[in-house]
């Protein structure tokens, strides 16, 4: 008789335990809200509406009628345009900063990433103040000082919306490509120069092909993110500027008749589009990381001399910094100090009352506390789950690793406002409803793809020979993991933490849907103030968010010595 050794059974059970647990966690965290979104699309009302029944009405309307299909095409086209622009500028910035002798590199890099500290929604508000056709500060200035007739810029058009969205996505493209450039062994480029190739042909024939996968992954990352953005197009004139699916979703949930089925149906449509984007992104980022770049060998980057291109290059970066940071913050500070928004900075009436009233507001104080709480807990849980997932999938090669990898990427494909609705239904009848914990759950679920992908990427980039050496020297599995693997991925773990921290502080769509008196966060306050109060207070809240983001990043940088741009 064959007897299976006890040890083998135990090992088999252990091998099953981890994938089952991880599968369950992801099923509840990620799949359930998405399943509820699909179910919601075929109901005529909410899940608890006694009059609601099943119907394909909304799905048919969204998938097969002209207004939605037209909006779908515009959404895809505009998102592609945003990705193209953001990547083009992001790559140029990354190349300039990591490959040339441009001065003040650290400063430049900080400046390029700085738009991340501004909530895109508040950034759009700032651009509305700057660039609306009649009262935009830039247009008023152009008319009064330079005698321009009409307007110089108009952000309330399709072009305007695309440009503003591109502006706030450049940091993502920059970070992805810059990380690839920094990880690339420059000896390949040196060889090209030695063989007589010029700067451009080297960049085109050597550098670009090596970082191409990361460019593709940045492209689809921005594409997917843009498809689901509602705050920027909503702040810049809604569908009058440009039809956009995410605005249709918001409208279905915020205007009469409140139609969650329609919102969910549009959500499923966006889900399929984004899923295609995610597939490309996933494929590209896997190709990108096929190059093992963290090896025991060291290298030194030789910086290209810009010579006469130095000034134009600096000008290019400064223009970007002016448009993405300086002008928007000037606009926010200006508005924050005015009694009412005025298009004339000379005759505007200034006051400190707005600051006083915001700071004295109990609701604002509570929401600062909630924001800090959610902002620290969510990225911590998110990164921990990301480490467990990445290590189990990549190094332990557990069963069903491929499926887990796919599920962990799903939330990117779901627009925040729809995912928020799914989370609302998942947890409505549980004690976490209405507490800050529902936000923590929502943010961990929403941002697990980012944390997981960043950590996974850095694990792949570690040369296995380092871990094998440790094992050969007699170190246990655990010891190798803790002494070698986790040490080496530490920088990317910390950058993942910071990225999710930034996202959690700025997130607005899901937070609006899940907000209640005891869990209001600053992003919700800024939205509420813009929609039902005053722009002045919304601007102040936006500035407060920036202060919290910068403080959080400064503290973590000093404590943990990590840079956001070191991400893998």
């Amino acid at each position, binding site marked *: 008789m064959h007897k299976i050794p006890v040890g083998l059974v135990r090992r088999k059970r252990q091998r099953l335990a981890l994938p089952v647990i991880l599968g369950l966690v992801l099923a509840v965290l990620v799949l359930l809200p998405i399943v509820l979104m699909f179910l919601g699309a075929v109901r005529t009302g909410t899940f608890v*509406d006694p009059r609601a029944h099943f119907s394909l009405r909304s799905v048919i309307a969204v998938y097969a009628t002209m207004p939605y299909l037209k909006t779908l095409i515009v959404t895809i086209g505009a998102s592609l345009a945003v990705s193209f622009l953001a990547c083009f500028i992001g790559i140029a910035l990354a190349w300039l900063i990591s490959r040339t002798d441009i001065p003040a590199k650290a400063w430049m890099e900080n400046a390029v990433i700085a738009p991340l500290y501004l909530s895109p929604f508040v950034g759009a508000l700032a651009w509305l103040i700057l660039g609306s056709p*009649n009262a935009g500060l830039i247009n008023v200035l152009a008319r009064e000082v330079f005698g321009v007739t009409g307007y110089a810029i108009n952000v309330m058009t399709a072009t305007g919306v695309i440009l503003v969205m591109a502006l706030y996505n450049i940091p993502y493209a920059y970070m992805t490509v810059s990380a690839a450039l920094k990880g690339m062994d420059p000896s390949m480029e040196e060889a090209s120069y030695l063989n007589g190739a010029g700067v451009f042909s080297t960049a085109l024939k050597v550098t670009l092909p090596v970082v191409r996968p990361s460019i593709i992954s940045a492209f689809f990352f921005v594409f997917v993110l843009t498809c689901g953005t509602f705050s920027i197009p909503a702040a810049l004139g809604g569908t009058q500027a440009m039809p956009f699916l995410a605005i249709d979703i918001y*409208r279905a949930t915020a205007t009469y008749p409140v139609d969650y089925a329609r919102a969910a149906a549009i959500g499923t449509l966006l889900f399929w589009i984004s899923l295609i984007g995610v597939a490309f992104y996933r494929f590209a980022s896997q190709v990108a990381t096929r190059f093992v770049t963290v090896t025991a060998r060291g290298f030194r980057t030789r910086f290209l001399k810009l010579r006469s291109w130095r000034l134009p290059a600096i000008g290019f970066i400064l223009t970007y910094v002016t448009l993405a940071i300086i002008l928007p913050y000037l606009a926010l500070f200006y508005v924050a100090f005015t009694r009412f928004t005025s*298009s004339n900075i000379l005759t505007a009436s200034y006051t400190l009352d707005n600051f006083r009233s915001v700071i004295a*507001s109990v609701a604002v104080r509570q929401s600062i506390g909630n924001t800090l709480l959610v902002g620290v807990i969510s990225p911590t849980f998110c990164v921990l789950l990301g480490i467990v997932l990445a290590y189990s999938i990549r190094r332990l090669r557990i069963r069903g690793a491929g499926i887990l990898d796919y599920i962990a990427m799903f939330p990117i494909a779901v627009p925040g406002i729809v995912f928020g609705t799914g989370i609302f239904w998942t947890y409505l009848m549980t004690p976490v409803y209405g507490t800050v914990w529902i936000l923590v759950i929502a943010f961990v679920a929403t941002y697990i793809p980012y944390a997981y992908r960043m950590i996974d990427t850095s694990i792949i980039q570690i040369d296995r020979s380092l871990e094998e050496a440790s094992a050969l020297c007699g170190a246990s599995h655990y010891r190798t993991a803790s002494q070698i693997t986790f040490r080496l991925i530490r920088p990317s773990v910390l950058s993942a933490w910071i990225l999710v921290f930034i996202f959690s502080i700025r997130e607005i769509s899901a937070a609006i849907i899940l907000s209640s*008196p005891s869990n209001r966060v600053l992003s919700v306050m800024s939205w509420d103030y813009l929609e039902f109060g005053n*722009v002045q207070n919304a601007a102040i809240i936006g500035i407060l968010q920036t202060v919290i983001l910068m403080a959080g990043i400064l503290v973590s940088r000093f404590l943990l010595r990590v840079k956001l741009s070191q991400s893998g």
Partner: protein
Amino acid sequence: MNDTHGGLPTYNFTRRNLMRMAAVAGLGAASLSFLPKVAVAQSSAPQPSEDLIAAAKTEGTLTFYHTTAIDPTAVWTSAFTKKYGITTQNVRGPSYPLFERWLTEERVGQHVADVVQITDTVLIESAHDEKLIADYTPASAAGIRPEMKKEGVWYTAFVNAMGIAWNSKLVSPEEEKLIREGGWNVLTDPRWKGRIATGTPASGGSSYSYVYMFLGGKRDQFGPDFLAKMAALKPQVYDSKSPMYDRLAAGEHAIVDQASQSDMGGFYLKGAPIRWVFPTPTPANLTVQTISAGAPHPNAARLFQDWAMSQEGQAAWFSVAGVSSAREDTVDPRKAAKADWYKEDWYKDPENLYIDYLGDPGYVDPAKPIIAEWNQLFGR
């Protein structure tokens, strides 16, 4: 009617209208005709019982779902807190999603809200049919105008008249004269092309009530032709009115409609170059309050409702917003003192409020067909 009417102008108290009001209020038409006088005659205001106050104080707090602007509401509720030591958690949301949210919470037994404020009485009555609303008649509510309450169910906290507002820096004196004297038709003048903004009726009860006058109640007078002319001017359409007023003050638009007294007053006090007029008839909208049947702080909710409907509560609202009261006996002291905008020669109270639509079948139709019609006209 006469000047005893305080903050509110005269109504179109035709017999037909009164019948409609009676249908809404669930009261007999006969008793209605002299009720306003009764309200004025009340001298000593009825007070909430000592037991209620004590029970409310034990609860210590309440959650208020509201649709009025955030900061003025916080100031208003703090007057209640100051009087009774009961704190309020205010949650602001757009009428429809906020109401939908509350419905969902109640249906699954997640009781969060105590008092719910909304600008759409139709929805409240449907929730009442679903037994989600607590029957309560505040003692102070006797002073609320009869057509502005449904006894035991909802009570009007404020009445908001809506007119046309303009930015005085972007409008010539002739144009200003035109706006002040031209009535509603001024909104269809081609001169406003590219200079006008409006709000969608899908955003909430007040915008819906406003548009209802043009496409529903006064369809014979205005109707789709009127709005088609306005739509031809390609106005900027806002999903929410607050940002629209801000952009008017900033000078993005020269003229907007759906200009509510309370919001315009706020901008005026900040020194914004905003003026406004109430053409006749002037659509008005009721902001009403009700108590959730599942209120976790039922006594505090009742005491707050009592206070909100009282002369004192209504007067407290005057100090933060310039809307009319739902009570006969509460007058904005600024009006008597000719202070603030009341001193301006361009300002005039609305003369003929259009408010008797609450019982119209077209208005209460849950499908709200005029929204679809409006969307069609404005190419949404």
